[in-house]
């Protein structure tokens, strides 16, 4: 079981301190969403969890081991990360891009093994991309492309998947498709999922655990019912929101909100 957590974490870019003394735990086997306003540090935190950003101070522990001490390949076998706006070289087919997900598990020399190929094919099936295997990634729509990137992360076969704004720029239908795919992964393969989401209501609907972040600090964390309350939304986003219950899913939703007069 993978647990990832931080202890006294300090994160900074150059001189700009983003996160100070953060203690955060991503619960294993659940879907967790990091929510918060622009610039609050949620992407920065995710990058630190994914070992892309080196902490200024403090630690990130993956399965109780300091992630900075672990070899990069070991980390890549335990967690996969999908950054914002990923880029692929032009001319690559879907199958080829997904096959890159096998990189951490392949030996230094040699072709893809039969097992690798099976996993890639299975992944394409699971993500509804089986028909698009030979399509060139550049020619796909935004939603299809995002599914390909997630497929690459899935092909890595890790127990923990980190995603930075996987649904931004996607239309309503694609957003649901992507999130439902993640839900399926969590349900069927017990993948721990941690993602940064802008859309509060999607976060509420699809997450088991929410962490609200502001200025690099945790304002509130817990189930959707615990976090999606007017007080938390006010403190985190500076909005005065009305919480209702989604008639179909029963999850808390915030549809009606206004700016508070005291927003910075």
């Amino acid at each position, binding site marked *: 079981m993978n647990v990832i957590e931080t202890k006294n974490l300090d994160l900074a870019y150059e001189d700009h301190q983003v996160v100070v003394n953060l203690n955060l735990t991503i619960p294993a086997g659940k879907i967790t969403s990091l929510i918060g306003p622009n610039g609050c540090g949620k992407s920065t935190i995710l990058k630190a969890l994914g070992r*892309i950003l080196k902490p200024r101070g403090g630690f990130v522990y993956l399965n109780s081991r300091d992630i900075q001490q672990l070899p990069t390949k070991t980390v890549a076998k335990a967690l996969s990360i999908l950054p914002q706006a*990923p880029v692929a070289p032009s*001319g690559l087919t879907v199958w080829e891009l997904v096959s890159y997900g096998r990189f951490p598990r392949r030996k230094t020399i040699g072709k893809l093994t039969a097992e690798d190929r099976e996993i890639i094919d299975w992944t394409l099936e699971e993500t509804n991309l089986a028909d698009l295997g*030979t399509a060139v990634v550049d020619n796909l729509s935004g939603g299809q492309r995002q599914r390909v990137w997630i497929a690459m992360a899935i092909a890595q076969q890790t127990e923990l998947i980190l995603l930075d704004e996987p649904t931004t720029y996607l239309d309503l239908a694609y957003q649901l498709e992507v999130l439902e795919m993640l839900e399926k992964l969590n349900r069927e393969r017990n993948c721990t999922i941690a993602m940064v989401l802008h859309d509060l209501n999607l976060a509420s609907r699809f997450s088991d655990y929410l962490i609200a972040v502001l200025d690099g600090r945790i304002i509130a964390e817990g189930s959707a019912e615990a976090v999606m309350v007017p007080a938390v939304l006010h403190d985190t986003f500076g909005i005065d929101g009305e919480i209702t219950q989604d008639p179909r899913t029963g999850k808390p939703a915030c549809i009606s909100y206004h700016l508070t007069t005291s927003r910075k």
Partner: protein
Amino acid sequence: MDLEVYQRKQKRRNTAIIIAFFMMLLLSVLISMRSGYSSLSVTDILRVILGGGSENEELVLFSFRLPRIVLSIMVGMGLATAGCLLQAVTGNALADTGILGINAGAGLMVVLYVIAFGTQSASAIFTLPFAALLGASGAFLLIYLLIKKRDLGISPFSMVMTGIAVQAGLSALTTLMVIKLDDTQYAFVSSWQSGSIWGANWTFVLAVLPWLCILLIAAMCKARVLDILGLREETAAGLGLRIKKEQQGILLIAVGLAGACVSVSGSISFVGLMAPHIARRLVGPRHNTLMPVCALVGSVLVSVADTIARVIIQPSSLPT
């Protein structure tokens, strides 16, 4: 389209492209063997190769033309591969050892070396690639330090701009040094500088061949790493690539290739820039296929250019 059908189609297409370029290379080699101050017909060439040529003909073919032809193929392969590696590592489609001043660095060292040791002794020639390598690495280090110092960040733009400046500076220095050369040294250096493969002989070929073989094989081994590097840093790191370490290794190979080639043929720009782009257009971005095709395209480019240079204003020749 079915995956297997697609992959078979790709294989067939790539094979056709490779054969086409091989044909071009062969043609260029044949024309090159034919032409020059004394022209040899195809039957003449066949006769000489099979051992039935006169001493004079053998001299022309084996001592003058063949080494130059072989050298142009080797240099084409080396520079094209170096360009391919550079472009992958820097994420910069405009990267090329000429533009970035790496060739100029190698050039400066070669000139200094020639001033110190001359070009007559064989041992001097065998150690020439080392000097060139030193110069090539020095130039690259200079660019890197300049970028870091001015806090520009390693973006394609900053690399190319700094590289152009470094190239200009080093070339100027080289010109200054050239003034101090005596006649024979000057003859060697000036034609060498313009990238002519004049004065090529088998010593040069043997000096460079082992380096080229080792470095080209090393480059091919990195094919998968290069693919992953193409996904940019964050994704590549997420896939478990030790980015800094791999970048350093690959840069070393690129600089080594550039140094080795420049040491015997002078600075030939744009092969490293064009060959990867042409190859990528033809066979796609996966380095398993891209690199060998890139090397092939490079060898065709230099070989053809060299042939044209020799033929076009016979009996004298243009610098390549």
